[in-house]
């Protein structure tokens, strides 16, 4: 143990009592963070990373308890501490920023006062002195015009600004340890870039230790010197970020890196490598990753590995030298270049001067302003822009879910500018949509069979359904099993729900599918599998996509053409390579630079292949 460690977690085990018994969310986790150092914790959803962050400051839900281990903050064990002493440490020394910025702020107090209160409480400052310091903090977290920002209420700020206020509150106490749990999830890339820059600055200035919890490997790689990879509640790899991500010694880390989209890659460069999805728990006497591991042997199913020293980093794998030797993961190059979309004489989709205004009077917001573009059959157009730029409204108008105030939508040359249910069955069949939230996209009261059968029935000319065999084939086409027909949505994982939603959209051979953030709510490993599926279906069905995403790597990977939207207007459009490589508009450049800043040197490289066009720099 190093003396200068601010936080030392030793053998920490956290359990939840549930209706089904005791569930171990965090198992025997050990690590330390030194002053001024940032440690990242990465893992898929359900890996226990948030529970770990909560357990460190003992903010566990009522049914959770620390079953074993210790958490030493500057030598004091927090696990055994009485409530008062714990509160003092939580209030003075350890600050936390959680995912949802809105819930951390009191809506009835002015933003500045919430920060000033921290100064009054902790430093015993008077009213005026506290206000002065609070305004200074608002400036430090780069809120425009701190003086007037002080007077405003939380609802008057955007999501990114609110998160900055929360970070300001956290920093106002001058903490020795800052715990950030997905602090930028749900925020725009440009905002994310600013917030991460801010945290890095503050860390350098104040020598704060940071525990950074995120599912985003790229972000962790950029911010943290040390990283721990969690899988099923266990640390499976631990070490310096550069080493772990450049030379992973655990198959899970390697798999996580492999399923990322390589920087600058497109669907023609190579297929993504998703991790196999296996729900089965191999049990305590096996390696937890065994069912999904490509390095597994018989030993892995009969013995639980320890965290071994793998030379500069630690890995919970018997075969860590083999994993290291296997080197950086690669993306399989596509062996066959897909046929270029045939230049058709008629456009599939023509959008002309589409306009939508929300609200009335002084509070009018122009959501989409004179949007005009066309889409040829078999092409994928990506729509990018920050939240509030009008991308989703544009898609919903094309879908017939939102009525435009002006403009036309033509599909196969015929005007379909009217609500979806007033379009003829051929138009409805030709245009389908995949939505963002897997848990809202399927009716929880219906079985998968009922959901798919109804779709097919409503979109067939004679309103007949299809038999189970046909529905089972439909499920197989999205790599689900026929048994899933009897399941209800909540029995499926997020990835499986999204597959059903894709099956529903493709059930009647649509010519155009609108994809609204189809993978943004999913784990990276699932994301890769869904993107591969979308590409396969697109090629098989010769469908066109309108892809809406704030994730530029996804858009770059899938899209042939790009539309850049800003405040309701299409500010730039063109072929993907052109827009990404030589953006014309300053706004596009800002958007892209926010992403390039994130694109650190992790992720798979492209295998040299006959059609891959050589290695892509990452």
């Amino acid at each position, binding site marked *: 143990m190093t003396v200068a460690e601010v936080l030392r977690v030793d053998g920490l085990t956290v359990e939840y009592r549930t209706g089904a018994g005791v569930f171990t969310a965090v198992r025997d986790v050990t690590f330390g963070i030194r002053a001024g150092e940032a440690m990242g914790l990465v893992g898929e959803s359900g890996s226990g990373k948030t529970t770990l962050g909560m357990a460190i400051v003992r903010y566990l839900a009522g049914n959770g308890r620390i079953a074993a281990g210790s958490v030493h903050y500057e030598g004091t064990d927090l696990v055994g501490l009485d409530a008062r002493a714990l509160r003092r440490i939580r209030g003075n020394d350890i600050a936390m920023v959680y995912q949802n910025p809105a819930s951390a702020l009191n809506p009835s107090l002015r933003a500045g006062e919430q920060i000033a209160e921290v100064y009054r409480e902790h430093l015993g400052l008077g009213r005026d002195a506290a206000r002065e310091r609070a305004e200074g903090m608002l400036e430090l977290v780069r809120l425009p015009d701190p003086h007037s920002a002080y007077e405003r209420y939380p609802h008057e700020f955007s999501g990114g600004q609110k998160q900055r206020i929360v970070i300001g509150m956290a920093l106002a106490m001058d903490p020795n340890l800052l715990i950030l749990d997905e602090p930028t999830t749900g925020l725009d890339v440009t905002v994310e870039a600013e917030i991460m820059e801010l945290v890095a600055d503050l860390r350098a200035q104040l020598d704060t230790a940071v525990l950074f919890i995120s599912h985003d490997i790229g972000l962790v790689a950029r911010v943290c010197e040390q990283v721990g990879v969690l899988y099923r509640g266990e640390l499976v790899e631990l070490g310096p970020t550069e080493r772990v991500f450049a030379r992973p010694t655990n198959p899970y880390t390697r798999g996580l890196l492999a399923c990322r989209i390589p920087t600058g890659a497109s669907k023609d460069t190579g297929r993504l490598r998703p991790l196999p999805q296996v729900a089965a728990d191999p049990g305590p006497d096996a390696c937890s990753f065994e069912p999904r591991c490509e390095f597994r042997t018989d030993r892995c199913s009969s013995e639980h590995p320890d965290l071994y020293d793998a030379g500069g980093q630690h890995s919970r794998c018997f075969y860590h030298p083999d994993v290291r030797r296997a080197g950086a993961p690669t993306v399989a190059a596509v062996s066959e270049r897909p046929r270029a979309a045939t230049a058709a004489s008629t456009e599939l989709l023509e959008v002309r001067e589409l306009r939508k205004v929300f609200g009335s009077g002084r509070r009018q917001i122009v959501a989409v302003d004179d949007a005009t573009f066309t889409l040829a059959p078999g092409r994928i157009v990506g729509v990018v822009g920050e939240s509030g730029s009008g991308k989703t409204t544009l898609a919903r108008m094309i879908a*017939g879910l939102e009525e435009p105030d002006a403009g036309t939508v033509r599909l196969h040359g015929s005007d379909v500018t009217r609500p979806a249910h007033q379009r003829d069955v051929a138009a409805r069949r030709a245009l389908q949509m995949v939505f963002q939230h897997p848990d*809202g996209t399927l009716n929880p009261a219906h079985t998968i069979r009922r959901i798919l059968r109804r779709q097919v029935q409503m979109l067939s000319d004679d309103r007949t359904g299809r038999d189970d065999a046909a529905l089972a084939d439909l499920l197989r086409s999205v790599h689900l099993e026929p048994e899933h027909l009897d399941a209800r949505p909540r029995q499926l994982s997020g990835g499986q729900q999204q597959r059903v939603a894709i099956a529903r959209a493709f059930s009647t051979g649509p010519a155009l599918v609108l994809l609204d953030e189809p993978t943004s709510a999913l784990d990276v490993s699932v994301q890769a599998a869904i993107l591969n599926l979308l590409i396969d279906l697109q090629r098989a069905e010769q469908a066109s996509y309108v892809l809406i995403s704030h994730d530029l790597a996804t858009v770059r990977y899938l899209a042939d053409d790009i539309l850049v939207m800003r405040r309701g207007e299409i500010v730039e459009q063109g072929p993907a390579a052109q827009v990404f490589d030589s953006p014309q508009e300053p706004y596009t450049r800002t958007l892209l630079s926010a992403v390039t800043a994130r694109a650190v040197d992790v992720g798979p490289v492209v295998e040299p292949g006959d059609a891959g066009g050589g290695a892509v720099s990452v």
Partner: protein
Amino acid sequence: MTALRTLLRSPGFAFAVIVCALWVIIALFWPLLVPYGPTEQLLGSRYTPPSATHWFGTDNLGRDVLSRILAGSRSVLVVGLASTALAVAIGTTLGLVAAFYRGRADEWLMRSLDLLMAFPIVVIASVVLAMLGPSRLNLVVVIAVMLAPYNARVVRSAVLSWRDRDFVAAARMRGESGPSILFRELLPNIVGTINVEFTMRLALSIFAVATLSFLGFGIQPPTPDWGLMVAEGRPFYQIAPWVVVAPAAAIASLVVAINVVAQKLRSS
């Protein structure tokens, strides 16, 4: 099902369910259970206090109070259940329509319902029944109309949390009609809410039936009815309290039991 099993393990809930079930069995089979005919006047035994032959005594006309209570359970339950079912059907439909279509229709509908809710149920019901004349059908309709707004409000707010989910958008994109989205897509998701609503309104409606009968706007004599029995026994309360206490206890046992069930259902 597992939720129901957990509920039944709670002793309060189990007891309340047993009380409700007992009344339902009595309402169905009272002709087999009563010791005397409910309208049979036993000459020479007026105001007999509770005894082995007459458990709850007899009333001013020498009728067996226990038999009248057992027989009276049927009208209370039938009118109560019918009016509640009608109220929930009307209220659920209005709530679904208001929440789904929003806009001006929603405004008008909800404000009209607010207006209706501003009046106490029994006051309006007694005025209307005085005009229409007391009959079982009128009773059912009036109580249903007065209870429906409460139901509509609850259903509306439940639907509001569902209507903007993507599965509704997906249904619209495949061309489902409005009613189809309301009843196929949204309704199944609020069944739990409706069950709780039904139980809570049932207790209210049974109490309203008893109150209106007591006031003379409901079931007419000589039909045995709990509210009516309380009204008939009231002038003689000093000499024969059992004639009033027994039917009042019957009303209380049923209403309280249903309320307990409703509360437990709601909190589960």
